[in-house]
């Protein structure tokens, strides 16, 4: 492009911008709150940017910092472990990524009247982990908070607890109010550890509240923590009274949440990738099932096999059940039959019915052992008839299918006898 052309193009762009500029009202910088020195005394520092003021607290942790059973630097080993795997997983992080552990506190639960008053971000420096907490100076200085968080910058991987369905949509909602002035908020890669925790500890932990997971799995017990539901009230009080002493407890709460986020990531990675088992059979069966759903069959089989190897039949019944499907898929029919048979006495009724069905199919189609097939079909029908987990309609439909199977196998079985005679 010639120099003249380039100039012409630039001019055009300039013109456009001017037009836009004249349309939009310019940003009115809000006044500073009156209680700055009070909040500073409580341990916060004030930051001023183009959009107003925001309070800031920074904490730096050495790599060796211990939080519960883990040192923060074990995160690097976790990343290394992921890089050594040969399969894809939605929770894998590579060393190329810029990771931010992210958690917010809000003034309410839902709706556009709810503001984010605290954004906590834990990142990694050259030699340290660094936590930055940004506190809404007052409701008018919101754009300053959002801008200062730098969450609009591209290329972060955000690790959160329930952030995918709560914190990030909240952030997007707040951003909408200032969309004419703030840089556009991009959608980053998000890893939500609530989802993984639900998968890993299903039927094992009653509640996957972070504080619960912390105590039972990460070896961290909080002392003098404020309950999360008080946070909105404490913030409102700090703004109304100008006193931030109590508010610092909310920052402490947020700090613990974020540190646990990091160690939870380490812990989850270990559970997903380590050979040595360090949790209950249920947990590993969940993990095996998860791999299966992710279509990582080999990995699933590996985990389930190790469960059956290391726990007794009673504990690993469900593992046998899932394993049996893998084995059938691998055409290891005898192994599959054996696994189903082991599982039958332990698994719940619904799965038991499934197992009888599979066994009947395996015996009929693969083993051609019609009397065995018949046995399992009859067992299945018996179970179905007394089952309470289907409604009448479903039951009727199911019974029809089972009856077809029964008639077919009877016929095959009869033929067989016939030829023998």
């Amino acid at each position, binding site marked *: 492009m010639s120099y003249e052309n380039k100039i012409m193009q630039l001019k055009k762009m300039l013109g456009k911008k001017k037009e836009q500029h004249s349309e939009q009202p310019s940003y009115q910088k809000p006044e500073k709150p009156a209680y700055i020195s009070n909040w500073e005394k409580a341990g916060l520092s004030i930051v001023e940017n183009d959009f107003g003021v925001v309070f800031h607290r920074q904490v730096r942790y050495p790599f060796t910092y211990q939080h519960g059973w883990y040192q923060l630097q074990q995160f690097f080993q976790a990343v290394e472990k992921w890089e050594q795997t040969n399969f894809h997983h939605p929770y894998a992080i590579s060393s190329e990524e810029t990771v931010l552990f992210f958690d917010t506190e809000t*003034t*309410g639960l839902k709706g*556009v009247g*709810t503001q984010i008053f605290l954004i906590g971000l834990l990142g990694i420096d050259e030699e340290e982990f660094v936590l930055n907490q940004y506190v809404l100076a*007052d409701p008018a200085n919101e754009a300053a908070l959002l801008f200062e968080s730098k969450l609009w910058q591209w290329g972060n991987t955000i690790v959160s607890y329930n952030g995918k369905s709560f914190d990030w949509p909240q952030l997007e909602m707040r951003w*909408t*109010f200032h969309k004419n002035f703030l840089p556009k908020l991009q959608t980053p890669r998000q890893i939500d550890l609530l989802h993984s925790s639900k998968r890993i500890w299903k039927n094992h932990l009653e509640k996957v509240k972070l504080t619960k997971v912390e105590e039972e799995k990460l070896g961290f017990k909080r002392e003098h923590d404020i309950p999360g539901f008080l946070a909105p009230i404490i913030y409102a009080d700090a703004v109304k009274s100008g006193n931030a002493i109590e508010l610092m407890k909310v920052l402490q709460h947020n700090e613990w949440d974020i540190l646990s986020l990091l160690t939870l990531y380490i812990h989850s990675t270990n559970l997903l990738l380590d050979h040595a088992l360090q949790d209950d059979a249920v947990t590993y069966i969940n993990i095996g099932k998860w791999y299966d759903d992710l279509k990582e069959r080999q990995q699933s089989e590996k985990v389930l096999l190790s469960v059956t190897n290391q726990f007794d039949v009673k504990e690993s019944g469900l593992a046998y059940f899932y394993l049996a499907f893998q084995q059938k898929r691998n055409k290891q029919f005898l192994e599959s039959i054996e696994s189903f048979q082991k599982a039958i006495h332990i698994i719940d009724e619904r799965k038991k019915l499934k197992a009888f069905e599979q066994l009947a199919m395996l015996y009929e189609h693969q083993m051609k052992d019609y009397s065995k097939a018949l046995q399992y079909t009859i067992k299945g029908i018996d179970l179905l008839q007394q089952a309470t987990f289907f409604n009448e309609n479903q039951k009727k439909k199911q019974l029809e299918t089972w009856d077809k199977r029964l008639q077919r196998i009877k016929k095959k079985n009869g033929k067989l006898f016939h030829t023998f005679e």
Partner: protein
Amino acid sequence: MKKKRTIDELVREWQEDEEIKQNIAHIVTMEGREGQYADFPEHLHPSIKKALQERGIKKLYTHQRQAFDLALAGKSFTAITPTASGKSLCYHLPVLQKILEDPSSRAIYLFPTKALAQDQKTDLNHLIDAMDEEIYSYTYDGDTAPNIRQKVRKAGHIVMTNPDMLHSGILPHHTKWVSLFENLKFIVIDELHTYKGVFGSHVAHVLRRLLRICHFYGSNPVFICTSATIKNPKELAEKLTNTKHELISQSGAPVGKKTFIFYNPPIIHTTFGVRKSSILEARDLAAKLYQAGIQTIVFAKSRVSVERLVTYLKQLTKNKIADESIQGYRGGYLPSERRQIEKGLRDGTIQIVVSTNALELGVDIGQLQACIMTGYPGNIASAWQQAGRAGRRQDSALVIYVANSTALDQYVVNHPDYLLGNAPEEALINPDNILILMSHLKCASFELPFSTNETYGEFEVQELLEYLQEEGVLVKTNAHYYWMSDRFPAHDVNLRSAAGENVVIIDQTIPAGTKVIGEMDTYSAMTLLHEEAIYLHQGVQYQVEKLDWEEKKAYVREVDVNYYTDANLAVELKVLSEDKSAMYQNVTVSYGDVSLVAIPTIFKKIHMTTLDNIGSGKIHIPPMEMHTNATWISFDLPENWSEEMLTDALTGAAYAIGSFIPLYIQCDRNDVTVVPQVKSVHNEKPTLFIYDSYPGGIGLSEKVYDLLVPILELTIEHVLSCPCEYGCPSCIGAQDNLSDGKSRVLKILKILFNEMM
């Protein structure tokens, strides 16, 4: 079964029938009118033209054309659209035109109920299909599946919803609806006339909040309203939307021939002026129409009368197996039941439907030939809505109005001009109701912070915001008030009732299969769902076994008894402040704030056919307290009157006055209550209180303050001309003993009237 006949044949037959003839007070035939048409607008988009032509529409009605021109000129308007006048094209055409011109355009359609939105969506989608264009219209309400909500928000050109959803589901989440609010061109309000009273006052605020959010996003939508005939459509629309409106008052749609029969049940007791029950008469007339094969809708005023009529009429089909040809339809039925009935009406498997005013609204049930109104529905607008249900497609139609014994009914049945002349009532709303205003001001603060010089709608609210700041729900910074509370204020406001939550009705006839069969507002529940009450649902009787008032649950069991129940409500009143007052010699009329305590006292069991009182009991429900507006008239005790004489006379006067208020103001009989006090607490004088039956008041009693003279005049005239001797339900209410009650009531009324003249 007798042979089928046409309406005209049937009417001729009745006019010659000795028994029926004498009950017909008047027959008025209104001839049909040709339609008035206008050409398609020149720039009407070809796709719309095509779709209309496919439907056989080659021209528009004049009002549809006017609507199109006004809307596209950016002028808000209200169109008066009688039933079956093609009102939906008044808004579909300009909205679709705009979207075709600029696909980023958006519109909101507001319907008073979910059911109406569903109906209109079907209708609109047929039109859009015929246009063959990519236009998306969706309903958005509590039933909308979560997985398509996102799509509705981002891509819906036309969002059909109801005020409740707008209030708590859309406005408090406006950032999810940016593309709607940035591009909102039209707000369509269908059935405008239903936005009156408490509900209308709430909706007025929901719309102010909506406009506020539109302005934030830079849009400036035009309002399109359609309304049934009321006296003040323009005023109502302007007050509701806080926007200037043009009025389209003339419908160009053709009208079929309509025969009105004013039917007055025979007097069975001359002295007491007792007439045969209108419900029993309506039953007999409906049976005749049924046998003549004429599809009929019967309107009754209350849920109880609907259920009684259904029970009676089902006798007609009791020997047929699985016959569904007679059905009830009212609020309180579950949506699935209602859909079923609507379908039956359309496909003709239902012959007679008995309904409360739930069907007044434009639910599309197709053609019905006859309509029976059991009792005057309370106002002209409703009466016309009900009458419009008959003969929707230009056919000859029959409307039978069966009068009750009440004063208002007797007036209407003897003055056909009142109903058929063109003087419908006013629909009132009162956005100034401070309780309603405050609750929406909170919602508005939640949605967008108020600046320190901002007004809200037509209101100066700085002081109120200051107050909310002191209350601690707002925080004031230099330039704004911000919401600062973890509450979600929209959840604290129920648009439908000033009282809040509903009572859920649970059927426990089968212990293992208890199920919810309906709900009811708390105020009605006090007198209809107390323990031992007989509650009727689809013609089935239930007895209330337990009422859990705390949890708002009524447990009922199916029973088979020959009585229904009727409950009394006692009311105590205290004057809080007097805003207006007029003093005469011995009479004072005032208007102001009152506080009242309503206490349900006893209920009576009344025999289904003889209407005898066959038992009674106490009601154990805590009193309900309410702060409202009232007009009250105090006067000095006439000389030589005992307090006992006064009690009866005041009760009679209250009864008579209360009957005529709905003649002037569009409200239901129960929206305004007249209560006599022999010795009022505040001035120890005989007083009549006329109060709004809703917390905070809705402007009805204030209107009464101005209209007291004509109301009294009409009342006196009516009591005087009533043929009874000592007073009857048609004038001053039933009297216990034969004395000069009627003359005493007249005396009091005259004292008041003469002084105020």
